[in-house]
């Protein structure tokens, strides 16, 4: 196995593209190194992307935000202005592992590991994040919910690296929230996770909303029907009830030791309702 730590994105893409064997990007390593040690992956080349400056920054762009793919959970949660703008996304990243894991785990790694239960992903989907992806043929953009296919499988092509997460600008009365259910409060994998982001106009009517749902299908989902139930309403009880029902209807979970299918479907709706309540409260306080 070879290890490289290039300082430019072009060099990283070239290294990945030219490797004839198995190549892997290394960000925080909290998934990859575990998998390597368990011999689930045996790369010939590991390309460490943490020395590439543009992958490490959080910046405000045209009223929205750009967050580099190699930004860690700890760095994101220490960024006060970003946290005020996207508290739900920060809640998702903050739930990843212990404080030690937080020091290393990146948002790019959480997404590209393609676990359906990854905690930052439903919140990123709700936020309407658009990814910038660099590859041998140049760069492209992709809505975050379209990156993953199934557990461990992404649509990234050979040589491609997720560079940044773009968060859209939004109105003054807007916020988001993420909630997950786990048997323990720390160090556990989500049984269900729901992110809700919404925006209201001057008289409290919901003008836009998005709902992301994790751990209940082969990948995290964007639940358009749930968002539709909120848009145009005052986010009253009836609207939130319809949104919760739509979220449950979208859940396609499996039975496993952490929860039965029926339980997960029910909890998806319950969490959606609570997350919408928190997002609404936050938006009104903005």
């Amino acid at each position, binding site marked *: 196995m070879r290890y490289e730590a290039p300082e430019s994105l072009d060099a990283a893409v070239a290294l990945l593209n030219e490797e004839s064997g198995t190549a892997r990007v*290394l960000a925080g390593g*909290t998934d990859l*190194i575990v998998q390597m040690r368990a011999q689930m992956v045996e790369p010939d080349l590991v390309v460490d992307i*943490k020395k590439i400056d543009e992958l490490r920054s959080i910046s405000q762009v045209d009223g929205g935000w750009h967050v580099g793919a190699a930004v860690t959970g700890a760095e994101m949660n220490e960024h006060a202005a970003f946290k005020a703008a996207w508290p739900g996304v920060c809640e998702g990243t903050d739930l990843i592992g212990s*404080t*030690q894991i937080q020091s290393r785990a990146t948002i790019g790694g959480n997404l590209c590991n393609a676990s359906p239960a990854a905690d930052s992903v439903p919140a990123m989907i709700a936020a309407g994040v658009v990814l910038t992806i660099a590859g041998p043929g140049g760069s492209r953009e992709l809505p975050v919910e379209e990156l993953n296919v199934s557990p461990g499988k992404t649509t990234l092509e050979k040589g491609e690296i997720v560079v940044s997460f773009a968060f859209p600008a939004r109105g003054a009365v807007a916020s988001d929230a993420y909630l997950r259910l786990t048997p323990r409060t720390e*160090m556990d994998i989500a049984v269900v996770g729901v992110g809700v982001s919404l925006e209201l106009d001057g008289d409290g009517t919901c003008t836009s909303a998005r709902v992301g749902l994790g751990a209940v299908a082969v990948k995290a989902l964007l639940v358009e029907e749930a968002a539709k139930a909120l848009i145009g309403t005052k986010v009253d009880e009836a609207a939130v009830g319809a949104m919760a029902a739509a979220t449950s209807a979208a859940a396609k979970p499996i039975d496993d030791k952490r929860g039965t299918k029926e339980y997960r479907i029910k909890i998806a709706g319950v969490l959606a309702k609570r997350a919408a309540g928190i997002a609404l409260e936050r938006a009104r306080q903005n």
Partner: protein
Amino acid sequence: MAKYHITAEINGDEVEYLCEPEQTLLDVLRDELNFTGTKEGCGSGDCGACTVMMNGRHVCSCLVMGVEANGAKIETVEGLADGEQLHPLQEKFIEHAALQCGICTPGILVASKALLERNPDPTETEVRYWLAGNLCRCTGYDKIIRAVLDAASEMRGN
């Protein structure tokens, strides 16, 4: 297998070592450099026994590649005491009998120091959450939490 030539700062001293890409920082510290204070519990990021500081942040050294430490600043439990003078956290762990077998202790000391550098006056809940990634199979945690809170108080000059 080609080895990598790595230069890192460990507990304030410049250290050079040769390392295979398959070795973790934990392997390097324990097996190559004889910093055996850092312990291996699980090897998968779950127990925190291998916690060290890397560039100002506490990390699980079992989930860091040895080659990644090139140019990095590493601090292990061996760097806590100042010569013969134990760190206040170490003194309080002894005073409160916050250890039994001691396997978890180096990692908990390093993680607690990282907490107190950021937050000199944590609440009990904050200490418990901060140390959620440090497992102890012996003490039942209560004495550990008391020791950290007491050390924090002493370090604030009370």
